[in-house]
């Protein structure tokens, strides 16, 4: 049995933040879950996927976040407790649905989990999704710890049903990827079949209806503010005239700093866990007893702006600070030392931080940058495209996936990136206004997610570029999730169809479509050359399973290769392919046998044919 399905009240489990969130939903009787995978939220859905295979939970990997939210909106409006999980930028994709769903509301509880990524450990920006609460009018709950996250999910469902609105559950990477001990509670009983009662004047927001619905949303926001005022998630601890207001993981650093700096009796903390609408009266009361207030929040000055406005309404003129040049930054993650030092500095406390050893005599340590895996099919494709495009001046818009790493030398394939699917739309623009050859790269899952509309646009408007679709048969970067192109039978999973990328591309009307097996370098280069020479939109689909995924499917392994005596040290392999299985020993190129997966790409490009398979 899946560990999150243990229905033993009182048992304690060591859980990752994302597991705790999934467990909270299970305890709350969630019946319907959807997602598009994205770090740092991915493990929440991984757990739902596994749980759905041994329970009555409906779960799906939807094609993108917007579709995922639309499904959940329908299920929730049929009375089912539903959850929709995504990373922070995923909510941009789902925003169109979100903002009108706030007008429509829900019947069954709907929790939308959005995982922000301060410091951008695995994201292209560090947007602060608390502002989605403001723009949509929806309530936001933000946990500070793994234990709290589990219980807060349960309350988020209840809050959603009380307000008849979706609730945004906002986390940050540090919460998602922290681990702690969680107390289990019994499950709430739940329904898995719903019913929809027609009421177009509630559910079809033509202007006349939407005008009423917006007014109703404003009433619900007022109701939400009243709940926020007395919510147990907005609490005050300690006493004193130094005020600290914080949220999320910052609360942990503040709490520890107050202990470390011995501020008991001098400082009080207001932790905001229900952050939209902000609890106006609670904050005003908190401010009244203070001489000075520090706001500790990662990301934007979201709370600080509100708190300053509340202080102004009360005519309070003491210092309220947070985001300042010599205090907290809008950039990156916070940490305990930083928070402790800022508190000490702002409140003029004596504090000598622990000394960091003098590291000036440490030699430069070679970096360990992220790299495409040994035997990664993307490396082979990039190499082939580079060879095929020799002599051309190119612009190579790239997209979101492992293959984004192709922008690093020696491959250096990747010149421009905005968001999921942007390789294709931006290629339309680049090819229109420059005379350079535009070559776009997109992965299979990203193509389904948001690449298709761009390609339809490119064909209709007669743009001129080559699109390389890197089809490695799985959504690799986020940890091998299915997408519509995946062979689900290989995973022994029934109940799925399989969508052919080639058929989609051809159905659009694109006439020049090539398919390559990238480990066959010569053939690949020729096919790509033909596509590059084509005037108009041409597509090459590069098909080869992700090396790690192939290993997990226990595909028959190929023999590793080694560099024989014939090697004359041209180093085409190291200088232009750069597979991490290579190393140099005594000025000779060698191959690490444990890392080599036998893709044979280096063997094909060696000018001396010196790289050969290991004999038995």
């Amino acid at each position: 049995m899946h560990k999150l399905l243990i229905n033993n009240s009182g048992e304690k489990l060591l859980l990752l933040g994302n597991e705790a969130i999934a467990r909270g939903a299970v305890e709350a009787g969630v019946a319907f879950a959807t997602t598009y995978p994205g770090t740092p939220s991915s493990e929440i859905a991984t757990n739902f996927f596994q749980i759905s295979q041994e329970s009555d939970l409906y779960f799906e990997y939807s094609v993108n976040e917007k579709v995922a939210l639309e499904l959940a909106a329908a299920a929730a409006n049929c009375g089912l407790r539903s959850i929709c999980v995504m990373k922070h930028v995923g909510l941009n994709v789902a925003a169109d649905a979100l903002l009108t769903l706030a007008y429509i509301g829900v019947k069954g509880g709907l929790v939308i989990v959005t995982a922000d990524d301060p410091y951008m450990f695995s994201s292209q920006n560090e947007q602060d999704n608390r502002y989605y609460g403001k723009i949509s009018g929806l309530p936001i709950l933000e946990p500070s710890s793994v234990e709290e996250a589990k219980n807060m999910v349960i309350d988020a469902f209840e809050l959603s049903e009380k307000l008849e609105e979706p609730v945004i559950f906002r986390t940050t990477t540090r919460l998602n990827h922290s681990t702690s001990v969680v107390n289990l509670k019994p499950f709430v009983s739940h329904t898995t079949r719903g019913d929809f009662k027609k009421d177009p004047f509630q559910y079809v927001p033509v202007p006349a209806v939407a005008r009423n619905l917006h007014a109703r949303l404003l009433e619900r926001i007022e109701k939400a503010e009243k709940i926020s005022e007395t919510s147990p998630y907005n609490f005050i601890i300690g006493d004193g005239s130094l005020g600290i207001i914080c949220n999320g993981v910052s609360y942990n650093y503040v709490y520890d700093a107050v202990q470390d700096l011995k501020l008991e009796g001098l400082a009080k903390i207001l932790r905001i866990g229900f952050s939209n609408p902000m609890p106006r009266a609670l904050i005003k009361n908190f401010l009244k007893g203070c001489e000075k207030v520090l706001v500790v929040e990662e990301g934007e000055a979201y709370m600080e702006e509100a708190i300053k406005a509340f202080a102004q309404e009360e005519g309070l003129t003491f210092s309220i600070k947070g985001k300042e040049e010599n205090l907290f930054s809008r950039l990156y993650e916070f940490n305990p030392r930083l928070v402790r030092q800022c508190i000490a500095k702002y409140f003029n406390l004596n504090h000598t931080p622990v000394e960091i050893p003098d590291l000036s005599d440490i030699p430069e340590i070679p970096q360990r940058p992220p790299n495409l895996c040994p035997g990664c099919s993307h490396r082979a494709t990039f190499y082939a495209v580079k060879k095929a495009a020799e002599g051309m001046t190119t612009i190579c818009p790239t997209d979101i996936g492992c293959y984004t790493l192709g922008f690093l030398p020696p491959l250096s394939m990747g010149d421009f990136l905005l968001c999921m699917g942007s390789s294709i739309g931006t290629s339309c623009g680049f090819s229109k206004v420059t005379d350079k050859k535009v070559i776009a790269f997109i992965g299979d899952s990203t193509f389904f997610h948001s690449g298709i509309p761009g390609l339809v646009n490119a064909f209709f408007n007669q743009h001129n570029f080559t699109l390389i679709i890197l089809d490695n048969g799985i959504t690799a970067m986020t940890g091998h999730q299915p997408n519509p192109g995946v062979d689900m039978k290989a995973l022994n999973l029934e109940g799925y169809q399989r969508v052919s990328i080639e058929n989609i591309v051809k159905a659009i009307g694109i006439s020049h479509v090539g398919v390559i097996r990238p480990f066959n370098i010569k053939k690949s280069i020729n096919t790509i050359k033909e596509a590059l020479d084509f005037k108009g939109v041409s597509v090459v689909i590069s098909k080869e399973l992700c090396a790690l995924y192939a290993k997990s499917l226990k595909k028959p392994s190929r023999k590793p290769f080694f560099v024989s005596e014939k090697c004359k040290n041209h180093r085409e392999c190291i200088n232009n392919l750069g597979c991490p299985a290579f190393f140099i020993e005594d000025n000779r190129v060698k191959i690490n046998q444990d890392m080599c997966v036998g893709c044979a790409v280096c063997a094909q490009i060696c000018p001396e044919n010196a790289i050969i398979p290991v004999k038995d």
Partner: protein
Amino acid sequence: MKTIRLIIVAVGGQGNLLASKILGEASLIAGVPVRMSEIHGMAQRGGVVESAILFGDAKSTIISEGESDVLLGFEPSETLRALNKCNSGTVVITNLSPIPPFTAAIGKGNYPDLAKLQNLIRAKVARLIAFDAFSLAKQAGDIMALNMVLLGSLLQTGILPLSADHVKEAIRTKTKKAYIETNIKAFDLGFSAAKALS
């Protein structure tokens, strides 16, 4: 309870996350409050993986520069790179078997000299325990048991509020059945290696 802060650094694939999980489970068995977090970069393999584990009453799940009580390094150059997490009172344990980064492996950048590396670390912290954990893992029967060797040496120091028995119980209940014997053997070899160096 006094907070003990442990940082573990490793190269992706070395089994750092399982080692952290075992310490978490051992804490649960021992009734010691524990919080931890992990950060791994974009690549699934080959990058640096860092875990922070806090035993005791702290609420934070990360460890700032200069604030670790123990640094456990699975790879010598990564141990050296993480020295900014240490202070003069920190105990450092490191495996001495290198996995050169790709950049160094292809001759772009020099891998630090191991003798010099140890002297540098020793001069800046309270104590350095350095040995070839890879050989001991091999001796235990599986190179993947490197993490268990290092857990053994970590427990030998007595800095954590856990006993070797707590950790062994976690190994027995939370690692795959087929590997339990090898893992326990590896743990004991690491424990003895640290003892021999004390």
